[in-house]
């Protein structure tokens, strides 16, 4: 067993090295467009892992991701836009003190965004997490819309519908992948700890979990707040990634995009979410073809049908949940031993399955 563990560590290190090499190559040689997509993949990994913690590992349904992202994004924007730029952005109403003269390092702003998102989660969770799971779904969906209403109306903080621009684009490929890696390791350690096991117990059977001494409210709240924190961080990264934000960026469809990743990867699979983040992010770019002209199709309008991409995207979400309910991996994870078993099966070796410790 220890020998297997050791070889896993070595293989993981190798993989990380290989990945950083690939990232360095993309960063140095690929087009701006490819670099952008690559960064977006990492941001989506963070967001998907954060949603999977609640949806997949705890079995409760939150639809507040766009809202938590908005909190993180506006925090990062307001805390990192240079003071001189703020004056030119806030034309209608000046930005309130002390935000008008304050700038903080990107990392600190990210954490503040996460903490504020977690605080919002606490306030929503307190009344809702004690009740049936569905109430949380509707309350978080509502919260997500309220945040947009607040953003639109709170002119002196958010600049209302005009939005915020000139957000420093600090979140380069290394920031994005660095944070994605930290979040990945964090989530993996959390769900394999005793607390993570308690969350899975709640997912499996709330009544039995409570009878085994697991406080439902405390553990659901833990999961929900951590998830919101990470969504806030993801939103902060996203703000720095796109550079300009407004209330329309955080529509509920942002949440659905992340939901798609989680469902496709498998609710309850970390490696599934990571893989699906790449597939969905890149796939959504490919689907852009559908919005343009498709000359090989008869009767297709010459200038293409704008919005076709989203029709296909939502249809795919439906198809996956209807026919491949467990997504790519269900609750399972890709591990080195599972890869090894798959490989040796492929190469035709009679390989005796090693049971996990």
């Amino acid at each position: 067993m220890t020998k297997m563990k050791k070889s896993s560590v070595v293989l993981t290190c190798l993989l990380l090295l290989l990945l950083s090499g690939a990232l360095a190559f993309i960063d140095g040689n690929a087009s701006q467009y490819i670099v952008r997509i690559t960064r977006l993949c990492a941001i989506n990994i963070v967001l998907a892992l954060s949603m999977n913690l609640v949806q997949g590992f705890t079995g409760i349904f939150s639809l507040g991701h766009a809202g938590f992202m908005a909190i993180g994004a506006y925090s990062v924007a307001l805390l990192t836009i240079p003071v001189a730029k703020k004056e030119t952005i806030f034309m209608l109403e000046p930005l309130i003190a002390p935000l008008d003269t304050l700038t903080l390092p990107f990392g600190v702003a990210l954490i503040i965004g996460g903490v504020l998102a977690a605080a919002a989660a606490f306030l929503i969770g307190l009344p809702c997490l004690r009740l049936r799971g569905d109430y949380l779904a509707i309350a978080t969906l509502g919260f997500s819309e309220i945040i947009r209403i607040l953003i639109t109306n709170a002119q002196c903080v958010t600049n209302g519908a005009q939005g915020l621009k000139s957000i420093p684009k600090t979140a380069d490929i290394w920031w994005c992948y660095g944070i994605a890696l930290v979040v990945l390791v964090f989530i993996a350690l959390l769900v394999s700890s005793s607390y993570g096991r308690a969350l899975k117990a709640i997912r499996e059977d709330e009544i039995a979990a409570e009878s085994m001494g697991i406080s439902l409210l405390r553990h659901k709240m833990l999961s929900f707040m951590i998830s919101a924190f990470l969504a806030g961080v993801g939103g902060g990264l996203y703000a720095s990634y796109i550079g300009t934000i407004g209330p329309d960026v955080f529509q509920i469809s942002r949440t659905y995009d992340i939901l798609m990743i989680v469902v496709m990867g498998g609710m309850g699979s970390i490696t599934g979410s990571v893989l699906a983040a790449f597939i969905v992010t890149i796939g959504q770019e490919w689907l852009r073809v559908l919005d343009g002209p498709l000359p090989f199709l008869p009767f297709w309008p010459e200038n293409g049908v704008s919005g076709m991409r989203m029709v296909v995207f939502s249809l795919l979400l439906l198809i996956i949940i209807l026919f491949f309910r467990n997504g790519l991996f269900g609750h399972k994870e890709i591990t080195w031993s599972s890869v090894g078993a798959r490989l040796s099966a492929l190469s035709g070796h009679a390989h005796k399955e090693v049971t996990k410790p």
Partner: protein
Amino acid sequence: MFNLTRLLQTLTDALSLGSLYALIAIGYTMVYGVLRLINFAHGEIFMIAMYIVFYGISLFVLPWYVTFALTILITALLGTLAERLAYRPLRSAPRISILVSAIGVSYFLQNLATVLFGGRPLNFPQIPLFTDVLIIGEIYIQRLSLIVPVVTAVLLLLLLLLIKRTRTGMAMRAVSRDYDAASLMGIDLNRTIAITFFIGSALAGVGAIMWGMEDTRIRPTIGSMPGIKCFIAAVLGGIGNTGGAVLGGLLIGFIEIVTVALFPSLSGYRDAFAFIVLILVLLVKPTGLLGEKTTEKV
């Protein structure tokens, strides 16, 4: 100044909006009753209904009554179809799957509407019979504002008769009370659930016709906000309870209109009121105003 005229004006508006919310909320509460599912697609079915009216009257120049009948029928069939295709196969799956499916249907219909009907708002046809303004003393009232509460009341009465007096209604109540036992007792679950969706969606169709005459700029996202609010109305009244949904809808309508009338500066936050009410109610009475306390069998 807040004089009698304005008071009456405000109350009429509130009653009219509240009745509309109530109509849509009934669909949520009925579906939740039988399937324990938040039918996220309900708001989109409601949206599609408005487009059907638009095409029926403005494009195909059908008489309004034919269009309305067709709208209600197509909407009801669409809701039933969504259940058949997207919910029924997942009935025994983990609850989270069917919720995702409901979201998928909602998202799909919204995106489909954007492609089919375009993202730009279309003008809902005006039918003078409904949209004419009556002047009673100093009060200006659209005829519609008076029609809406009456239509809601009549439909509610018919629905309650159906639920209380007919075999189908009894089957619905049985399924709401105990899903498994009902199927063991020989109740045709598929039929009962399909009828529930049919009726709930038909009511959404009626609601959409009247909604469109008030909020005349129809767009693919028009259903989402009323959708969420009406689910909240259903929760507020006690989910699963038809009378509760009506009460909840009326309450939210009154809260919105009256608050904005009293504090015009809050009008930008109008859409947020329902959620604040939801949070408060869940804190004080989680089962809603008319809801019964349900305990899961252990």
